[in-house]
């Protein structure tokens, strides 16, 4: 892979790695009495490892200039591998923390393994590790194919991908060390956040520069979503993470937003991390891989426009529905509720557009588990956006908020929508990128599909039940007008559901492991495919839609 870079580009890579390693040295020195020092060492180790990789091929022969006439697929391949590795890690952490709720002694009396520290390693591991790497890989693939142009940089795609993974490593290892802002889904501390800004700006520049090189007059709809994902996540990330560190040698910082304003900024961020990370980015996947796999054009171009701008505009108002009946002013809560309900229109427009695209290809959905992954993802997307709008209605929220219902809702979306569309896309991508005829085993894709569906349903039903029981127990009164149940009563009622939930998560994790094995064997053992026309940018690729 390094051999595909020119000697000048190899030198540039070394320079960048040395600069980042020096930043690591500075962190290790300034933070020697603080967990930040450990992070400095992690940065140094990562950079030294990569320098070794580059140096190994440093004097390899120059690549042929024709490389620029081909698509740049190496970073995509590595992105998929990293994404699956994070999936196994993040989902394992999820099963572990789920089990801790039923058997609290599974923390083994250590600081790093208590629920509060492990829980963000699960959320960051799956959202940023698995989801983020999947999005970077898919966006690199989609933008090249739909623009019929090679990525607009040779070193920068590696910088984006590996720099992003450095952020993930700093975030997750930080939680284990007790380094956290305790801002949900934005727990990483200030220096990791600052690093992510650098990586993300590079990502945006690379993406727009690639689109600018396109041989197609129009920007394909999948790229609208990827652009919205990159841009809005940048805005959210920067605003929510503005903070003053205690000192340059402290990992700890204090956010600039106080109290009620912090709550609003946090949930404006939190809900739109769902919107632009977990929805817009993955809709970008859906709008490319589903029509490609179904071999049908997108059902409606107008519906795509409606849903894209609806999602981009409405979602940003919806965050305050996380703060119903709190000390946040009533008018903001009402706005959040109103826009959350309106969001159902663009959300169902997207889900409907995807499902109607399958008209004429339903026999493929029946026979091809990969396409069925994507179909099921669109169904779960439709279900969980309906559920989300419903839960944002104030009186419904009075019951659901603070309960496991929220957790069930999130996982119906995260497992049923985000993970399924990612697996469907990967099963399409892996044979294409490694130039194989097909996946190693269609039967194993089938096994993965049913494990994932069973896991998701068990999980969601367990949490719906526990959440609603919890919410009702908290508000049940005796005939004398006293609260009928103590908090502990409601906790005792949760135990069977916590066990069921851990089991559902375990099934889902097993499916992921099966997927990893299948992909590994595809790369190693599946028969090679003949070079296809769509493997080169200059030949018109199969572009869906329009």
């Amino acid at each position, binding site marked *: 892979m390094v051999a595909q870079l020119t000697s000048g580009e190899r030198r540039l890579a070394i320079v960048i790695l040395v600069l980042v390693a020096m930043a690591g040295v500075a962190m290790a020195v300034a933070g020697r009495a603080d967990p930040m020092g450990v992070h400095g060492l992690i940065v140094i180790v990562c950079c030294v490892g990569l320098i070794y990789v580059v140096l190994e091929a440093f004097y390899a022969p120059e690549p042929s200039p024709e490389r620029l006439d081909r698509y740049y697929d190496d970073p995509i391949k590595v992105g998929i591998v990293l994404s699956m590795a994070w999936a196994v890690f993040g989902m394992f952490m999820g099963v572990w923390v789920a089990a801790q709720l039923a058997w*609290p002694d599974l923390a083994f009396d250590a600081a790093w393994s208590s629920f509060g520290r492990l829980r963000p390693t699960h959320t960051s591991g799956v959202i940023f590790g698995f989801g983020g790497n999947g999005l970077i890989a898919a966006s690199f693939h989609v933008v090249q194919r739909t623009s019929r142009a090679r990525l607009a940089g040779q070193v920068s795609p590696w910088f984006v991908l590996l720099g992003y993974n450095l952020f993930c490593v700093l975030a997750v290892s930080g939680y284990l060390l007790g380094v956290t802002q305790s801002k949900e889904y934005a727990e990483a501390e200030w220096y990791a956040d600052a690093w992510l800004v650098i990586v993300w700006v590079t990502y945006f520049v690379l993406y727009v520069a690639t689109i600018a090189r396109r041989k197609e007059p129009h920007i394909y709809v999948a790229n609208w979503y990827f652009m919205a994902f990159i*841009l809005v996540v940048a805005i959210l990330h920067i605003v929510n993470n503005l903070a003053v*560190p205690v000192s340059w040698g402290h990992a700890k910082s204090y956010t600039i937003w106080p109290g009620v304003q912090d709550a609003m900024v946090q949930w404006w961020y939190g809900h739109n991390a769902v919107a632009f990370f977990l929805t817009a980015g993955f809709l970008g996947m859906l709008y490319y891989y589903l029509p490609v796999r179904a071999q049908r054009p997108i059902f409606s171009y107008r519906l795509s426009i409606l849903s894209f701008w609806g999602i981009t505009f409405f979602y940003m108002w*919806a965050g305050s529905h996380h703060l119903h009946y709190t*000390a946040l002013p009533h008018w903001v809560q009402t706005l959040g509720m109103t826009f959350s309900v309106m969001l159902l229109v663009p959300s169902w427009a997207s889900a409907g557009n995807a499902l109607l695209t399958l008209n004429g290809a339903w026999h493929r959905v029946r026979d091809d588990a990969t396409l069925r992954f994507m179909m099921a993802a669109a169904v779960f997307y439709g279900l969980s956006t309906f559920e989300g709008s419903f839960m944002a209605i104030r009186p419904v929220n009075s019951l659901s908020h*603070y309960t496991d219902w929220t*957790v069930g809702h999130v996982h119906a979306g995260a497992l049923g929508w985000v993970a399924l569309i990612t697996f469907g896309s990967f099963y399409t991508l892996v044979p294409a990128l490694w130039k194989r005829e097909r996946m190693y085993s269609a039967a194993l894709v089938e096994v993965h599909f049913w494990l994932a569906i069973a896991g998701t349903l068990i999980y969601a039903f367990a949490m719906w039940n526990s959440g609603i029981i919890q919410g009702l127990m908290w508000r049940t009164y005796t005939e004398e007008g006293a609260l009928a149940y103590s908090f502990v009563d409601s906790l005792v009622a949760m135990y069977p559901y916590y066990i069921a939930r851990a089991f559902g998560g375990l099934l889902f994790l097993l499916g992921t492991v099966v997927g990893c094995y299948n992909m590994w064997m595809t790369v190693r053992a599946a028969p090679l495919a003949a070079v296809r026309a769509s493997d080169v940018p200059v030949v018109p690729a199969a572009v869906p839609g329009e």
Partner: protein
Amino acid sequence: MPEFFHRKIERSAIGFAIAIIAAASVGGIVEIAPLFTIDETVEQAADMRVYTPLELAGRNIYVREGCYACHSQMIRTLRDEVERYGPYSLAVESQYDRPMLWGSKRTGPDLARIGGKYSDFWHVAHLTNPRDVVPESNMPAYRWLARTALKVDDLPLHLAAQRALGVPYTEEMVENAVRDAYGQATPDTGFAAG
């Protein structure tokens, strides 16, 4: 007609990016900016004070251990919550909270008004092993907290950072933060004389 317009902006990467930023900015600006300008957002309350250095250090443990994942600190304006946990929370009560710790999930109960309800002895026993005092509890045991010394020497830096953000700590409070913390922790010693 709208389709014609859209066909146009679809041809420009930068134009499309600007359109996304414009569409996505409105909601946040309308909902966040007025929270700083409308006076009623945070009520006036006479008896509000900043956290003492020791309280801040304790709050930072709560932050470090991710307690927000299971506990809220926000009693909603609902009858059953007020009867279970106490008067509903006001914005002014978290005006010095960075970050706010309102939470989003109650695997355990709300803690906004837990202060003073149980003795220190109870808390030590509970953190050592929650199941010793609440047999049904699924909270992790925090035995190692008792084995870990609290870092207090950098408390002045913590207070100074908060002060830079507008929390009304005085110069004197920042300077004496360490002594103050020792004094509050050990009220029967010379530190408390201060």
